[in-house]
């Protein structure tokens, strides 16, 4: 199945609208607000952990369970967010204009830079401090999961076939009923696919969010992430190995017990069946479906669900739809404009106050230069990864039996949090005395390169047999074959994968540009390292500056490079 493109790609030409400007302003305002609030709250929170994390492997199952629980709670919150935010954006024209750019900017905000700010904020909000740290970790995981799910759901809601919408209107389904009967089922396959991606992506942040130090406060939550952090400080390579092994097991269980069955189950919601693709299967789902016990157990829930589904909530009064009169419509517009203006003013005030307080023009230039350094790293890395994975992906994708083997492995590797491998890499750099400016860089793309691979595999597999036969028939070989057949055919898929990889790499730079092994600290010149160091120092003003500049880079690249490239590839090279 193909990924949906993770950025907003509406329309040529307008690459930055006033709604984008407003979205940037609002997010910046919120960041500043949180940072300011947190700064005043920050006090020594020395002995947070009542029970310190230990490196005893026997504790790992418990840690893994705790980590997993955090991720599941975050996933539930992300679903809630998706169903409300994306639905509002898709159904309300006024809301849509602001909510979509807001989401687009939000997903470019580096989550890792965010954690430090939210940790302090949540810890002071919560009654018990441990609970606050838990909230902060869950929130960090949530921010790594929610945006792309909401985006996918929004895009699905926008493409529900007109006839289905008309059926639900014609048979007068209540909004509640048509949401669960029409909208959610239609969006389900794409949503589940994005949930899987979100889950994969969030492993990365789990590791980073369980053990975090802000200023002189160190917060450690029992979990796999803090276990790894401890192993790194204690230079315990064996412990790192145990952690990696545990992760692999957990990811495998997740895949087999949760996502495979979900994917197999959601196949029935596929609106268009791709011919020749066998339906996904799952042994787990088969077991659940055939078991009488499970049947009996779920029956009451199924009944309850049906009651809920048929509940006549949100019913339109008779006569149902009233078209607002011009004057009424104008009034709604005025109200809406007023709300937006107030929000914008508050955000603007926050940002202005903040900028004048502690940021000098020199700071900004410096951070922009750091951003350029990270940017050039990412450009080189994406280029290198493309040169390596595109040919391999095409080779694999055009051989179905190989693709069936490689595809799940690539997905597993994408789910695997690359930062647990950092200790291995860092010790190698230290031992071999390599330049961290160069050799730390590959860590940024370690986890995200797989998106390029499995998208290209999917694209190559989708080349129609007839087109390949033409190639054989006319003896199109070698470079000509790549230039005329393979590369154009996979381009739309490649672009989608590369956008995901590039966005992910920016985020990863915050943990990849600084790395340590025991008391050995490595640091590369770049924006990621800057944010990480400011976080350690508890310097909120400069964290916000770093985050803002990084978001700025990501949005700018998306708008002036990826979006046009995506639209071009879609228009020119989309098959069928």
């Amino acid at each position: 199945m193909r990924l949906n493109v993770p950025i907003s790609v509406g329309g040529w030409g307008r690459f930055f609208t006033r709604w984008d400007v407003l979205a940037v302003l609002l997010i910046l305002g919120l960041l500043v607000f949180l940072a300011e609030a947190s700064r005043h709250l920050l006090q020594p929170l020395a002995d947070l952990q009542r029970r310190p994390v230990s490196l005893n492997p026997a504790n790992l199952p418990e840690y893994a369970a705790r980590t997993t629980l955090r991720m599941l709670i975050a996933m539930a919150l992300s679903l809630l967010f998706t169903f409300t935010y994306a639905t509002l954006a898709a159904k309300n024209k006024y809301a849509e204009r602001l909510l979509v750019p807001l989401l687009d900017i939000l997903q470019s905000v580096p989550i890792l830079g965010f954690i430090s700010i939210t940790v302090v904020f949540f810890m002071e909000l919560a009654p018990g401090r441990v609970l606050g740290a838990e909230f902060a970790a869950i929130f960090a995981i949530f921010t790594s999961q929610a945006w792309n799910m909401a985006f996918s759901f929004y895009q699905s809601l926008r493409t529900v076939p007109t006839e289905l919408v008309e059926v639900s209107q014609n048979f007068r389904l209540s909004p509640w009923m048509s949401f669960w009967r029409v909208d959610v089922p239609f969006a389900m396959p794409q949503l589940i696919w994005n949930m899987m991606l979100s889950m994969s992506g969030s492993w990365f942040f789990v590791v980073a969010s369980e053990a975090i130090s802000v200023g002189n406060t160190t917060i450690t939550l029992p979990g796999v992430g803090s276990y790894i952090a401890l192993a790194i400080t204690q230079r315990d390579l064996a412990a790192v190995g145990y952690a990696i092994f545990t992760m692999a097991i957990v990811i495998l269980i997740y895949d087999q017990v949760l996502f495979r069955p979900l994917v197999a189950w959601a196949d029935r919601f596929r609106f268009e069946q791709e011919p020749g693709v066998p339906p996904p299967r799952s042994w787990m789902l088969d077991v659940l479906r055939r078991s009488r016990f499970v049947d009996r157990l779920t029956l009451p829930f199924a009944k309850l669900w049906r009651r809920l589904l048929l509940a006549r909530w949100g019913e339109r009064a008779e006569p149902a739809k009233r078209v607002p009169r011009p004057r009424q419509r104008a009034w709604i517009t005025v109200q809406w404009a007023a709300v937006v203006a107030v929000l914008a003013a508050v955000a603007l005030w926050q940002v202005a106050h903040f900028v004048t307080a502690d940021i000098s023009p020199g700071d900004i230039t410096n951070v922009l230069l750091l951003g350029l350094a990270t940017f050039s790293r990412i450009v080189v890395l994406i280029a290198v990864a493309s040169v390596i994975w595109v040919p391999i992906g095409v080779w694999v994708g055009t051989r179905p039996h190989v693709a069936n083997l490689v595809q799940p492995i690539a997905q597993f590797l994408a789910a695997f949090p690359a930062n647990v491998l950092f200790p291995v890499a860092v010790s190698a750099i230290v031992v071999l005395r390599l330049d961290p400016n160069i050799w730390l860089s590959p860590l940024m793309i370690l986890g995200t390169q797989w998106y390029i691979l499995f998208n290209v595999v999917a694209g190559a597999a989708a080349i129609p047999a007839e087109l390949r036969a033409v190639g054989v028939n006319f003896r199109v070989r070698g470079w000509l074959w790549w230039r005329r057949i393979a590369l154009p055919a996979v381009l739309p898929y490649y672009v989608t994968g590369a956008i995901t990889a590039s966005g992910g790499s920016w985020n990863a730079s915050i943990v990849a540009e600084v790395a340590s092994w025991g008391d050995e600290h490595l640091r590369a010149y770049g924006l990621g390292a800057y944010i990480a160091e400011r976080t350690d120092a508890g310097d909120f003003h400069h964290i916000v500056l770093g985050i803002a500049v990084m978001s700025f880079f990501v949005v700018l690249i998306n708008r002036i490079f990826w979006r046009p490239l995506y639209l071009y590839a879609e228009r020119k090279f989309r098959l069928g």
Partner: protein
Amino acid sequence: MSASTLLDIQALRQTFPRADGGELLVLDGIDLQLAQGQIVGLLGRTGSGKSTLLRSIAGLMPPSAGSITYLGQPVVAPAPGIAMVFQGFALFPWLTVLENVQLGLEALGLPDAEIRKRALAAIDLIGLDGYESAYPRELSGGMRQRVGFARALVVHPNILLMDEPFSALDVLTAETLRTDFLELWGDGKLPIKGVMLVTHNIEEAVLMCDRILLFASNPGRIIREIAVDIKRPRNRLDPQFHDLVEKIYVAMTARTPTPPVIGTTPGTVATTINTILPRVSANILSGLLETLAAPPYDGKADLPILADEQHLEVDDLFPIADALQMFHLAEIEGGDIKLTDLGRQFVDADTDGRKRLFQRQLLSYVPLSAHIRRVLQDRANHVAPRSRFFDELEDHMSTEDVEQTLRSVTAWARYAEAFAYDDDSQTFSLENPT
């Protein structure tokens, strides 16, 4: 309005908002009544607004002006008692046959037992017994549309709206479904009181309807009402049936004065820059000209016979005939199509000769092509962006119509080598690649 009137439409007008903020008139001056026990057909070409009318009746589009009254109540939102059958079936792939049929009843909030009873009865009536637990993808097209019918009938609507319900089916399946439907209707087994059927198939209209309303385009309006007084069950081979089909062909191809287009003199018949051009390729035009020139037609054919023998649907045939007439390569009169002298010249010419002749006709009779060429000639580099013409046309027609019109004129100009178009840069130019 008599007591038996189910639906009463007065001076209905529907407009869509246009890109420039203006309005596009889709339906104008529609008056019609549906009486109990009647099947009324809405017959017209694509784009004549008949589907828009059906959706207005279904309450999916509130009227821009005029009124739709159903049993004395104005229709501004989906009304209970009006159910619809869709062209593309519109079944939910994630619901079984039974669940699809139950949907409308669930929305009514009926008790579970009754929902089940009524759904099973509808499934039984429509001949879907044994398919209750199947998913739509497991069914053939005909069976899927039966589910569409069962889903509509199960809510016991007073009015059944059918939007080209048989056009996505193959000929044999469509005929079976029509016959089954008419049989149930004739026996009074259907829980409905009146039917409105949208179709572009003339024979289907004559076979099924008590009254047929003929639609014309731009804006969509009723040009004629024809009562069908043939005894049921009707036979396609009946001379009376054949005569009526012929009569409708004549009515549908008769030259009606083109409605005034903004910026032109009212009442002119000629094509203007703002005319929506049919999507017909030069290949199809030559194909039909050759067919017409050859025996058995020898330059003249009866349209119903031509449609039948060449396996062309009315929706395919009429645009081709229109285009030929526009290029003055053929003439249509009294339900016949006749080759002109130029048309014969075209058939006899070789490829280059055909292209030259086609270019002359294109530039003379399709003002848009002459306009584009003139603009290109006036510009120093002989290049103009597509958007320039797109914006110009968009003031007078819907975005889809602009797309179609520009595609058509581009395709014709390419064949005629009148000017070139580069899709990468989206520009027209006078230079063909050398």
